[in-house]
């Protein structure tokens, strides 16, 4: 088994008197697809927010490749390679699809003020490479013909795909998808499943996702973490989770 890339343990998040997340732990190995499931309001997105630095966890540790990252600011964690999408798509709506992808490469570009002002060869090269990389990914998510359309005018499914491509622009070590299939029709969900497969197999991506679509979760996950009311409920392979009586109870209620 490959080594663990992201390890969280004893994660707690307290909002005033409310303990939204209580002692959640999860481990994501390299090149794995790990899903986090649980009923609405279970605290899945809160865990995501803790992992990506949007919230400061009240207690617990998060290790990225052995290095503690809890308490760092969101953009610092993103720079270390933990990049996420959002439940409600957050694209730069007025900017074109390709510009969205260029912005995400900001950190890998030549941002020197003077070299940009005088268009030095190094700057041109950096910009050209950024364009090529963006193009490559536009093709990968099947959006090349929409490259110069404002992102806000794309169809919902396309926006979701563009958001994933935008994350890939940052060369992430772990890609976190918050309900990527929400609002997609069955055909688009199939496409998404294929895309996640491509990400893993061809681009060696490690994926952590929150999802409600059980068919999708069961078919692509290597490992599943179940959370209920902020506490960890179960943890295992899809088969183990499917047969776990606790999980069935939490989802369907008691018979």
């Amino acid at each position: 088994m490959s080594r663990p890339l992201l390890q969280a343990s004893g994660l707690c998040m307290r909002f005033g008197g409310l303990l939204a997340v209580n002692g959640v732990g999860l481990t994501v190995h390299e090149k794995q697809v790990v899903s986090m499931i649980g009923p609405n309001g279970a605290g899945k997105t809160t865990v995501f927010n803790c992992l990506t630095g949007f919230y400061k966890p009240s207690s617990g540790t998060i290790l990225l490749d052995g290095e503690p990252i809890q308490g760092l600011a969101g953009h610092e964690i993103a720079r270390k390679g933990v990049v996420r999408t959002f439940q409600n798509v957050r694209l730069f709506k007025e900017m074109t699809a390709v510009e969205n992808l260029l912005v995400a490469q900001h950190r890998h570009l030549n941002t020197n003020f003077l070299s940009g002002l005088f268009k030095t060869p190094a700057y041109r090269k950096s910009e050209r490479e950024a364009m090529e990389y963006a193009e490559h990914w536009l093709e990968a998510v099947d959006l090349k013909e929409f490259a110069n359309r404002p992102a806000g005018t794309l169809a919902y499914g396309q926006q979701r795909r563009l958001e994933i491509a935008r994350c890939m622009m940052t060369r992430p070590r772990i890609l976190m998808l918050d309900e990527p299939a929400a609002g997609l029709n069955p055909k688009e969900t199939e496409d998404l499943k294929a895309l996640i497969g491509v990400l893993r197999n061809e681009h060696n991506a490690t994926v952590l996702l929150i999802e409600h679509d059980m068919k999708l979760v069961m078919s692509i996950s290597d490992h599943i973490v179940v959370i209920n009311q902020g506490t960890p409920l179960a943890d295992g392979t899809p088969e183990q989770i499917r047969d776990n009586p606790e999980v069935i109870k939490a989802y369907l209620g008691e018979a």
Partner: protein
Amino acid sequence: MTRNLKSALFSAVLVLAVAYPILGLKLDIVGINLAVVGASTTTVLVIFAAAFLMFLRVLFNEQISAMWRSRPQKQLMSDKTSNFLTLPSTQRWFLGALVIAALVWPFFGSRGAVDIATLILIYVMLGLGLNIVVGLAGLLDLGYVGFYAVGAYTYALLQHYFGFGFWICLPLAGLASATFGFLLGFPVLRLRGDYLAIVTLGFGEIIRLFLRNLTDITGGPNGISNIEKPTLFGLSFERKAAEGMQTFHEYFGLQYNSINKVIFLYLIALLLALLALFVINRLLRMPIGRAWEALREDEIACRALGLNPTIIKLSAFTLGAAFAGFAGSFFAARQGLITPESFTFLESAIILAIVVLGGMGSQLGVILAAVVMILLPELLREFSEYRMLGFGALMVLMMIWRPQGFLPMQRPVMKLKGER
């Protein structure tokens, strides 16, 4: 119908209540006292007529709007022309023609016209600078004039106390303003939207009041006078040069003509404005420009992608302030006298209006708006009492017919490989 009648009556009374005290009453000086005098009968009649028209307009609101709707919709310009006008390539050509015209005409124009053009160019510079902050980065800055003041006072003070020339002070003024922008940016940029607007407004006022009360150094309300004009490689444009300097007309053996000075100032302003245009144009297409826009669109997404919002905002604020500093030092040089009263909130409002009228983020739009905003009041000097009225009317009309501004920004189209 009764409801209509009620609101119609109310509107008519409102028109009377607003218009009569403003237009129908005049203050006259009688001896040492002020006396309130009624305006001429015509004015009063016009006010009543306006109130009556308003009454009819509101009473028959539905019928009138139905009539409007039944008429075929005619847009201000067709979508096609509007699109063509805002295409980057069209704008480039248009800009080129504009620059050539701007270079040539002062040699044929009158002294007054050139002077006004210089003023317009100052506002173009300011508009372009504020456009970075408001149009691109989406940070509503109502205290922009503060940085303009810092630039102006930097030159004035350095000149007054140390005798520095304009050309040395120009970059220094930019630097000083940028430093101020940076320092003020730190505490302010945690705020968003309306809160940011209010705090920047406060900062603008603080700078003005500070300059006003620092009487020992800045001369307080009297300001600083006798600020030197820029020189051309050490050649002065005055009739008589200061000691150790030569004048332009003596050096070239020309007859002294005061218009030379005006044209020279105009050309400097043009140079500065073009420089600002060039730099900002490049910035727009650079990673930092894209990051500014991304920040305006969605700050949280920016953070999730590893962009540091604080640094990006600060860079926008600082660069915007630097351009205000350049404009300010030139303003001080042109004017020869600056007082804190040159930098009131109204100036900020005018610059902001230029950005909004022109179309957020659009450079040609900003230039056009600066021309309109500065030229119109100059052309309509006889009606200067109604300047604010016209200003408001223009804003309202723009918001109705072209809320995106004269020439809104169009996204640059990226050529992909394998595309024709």
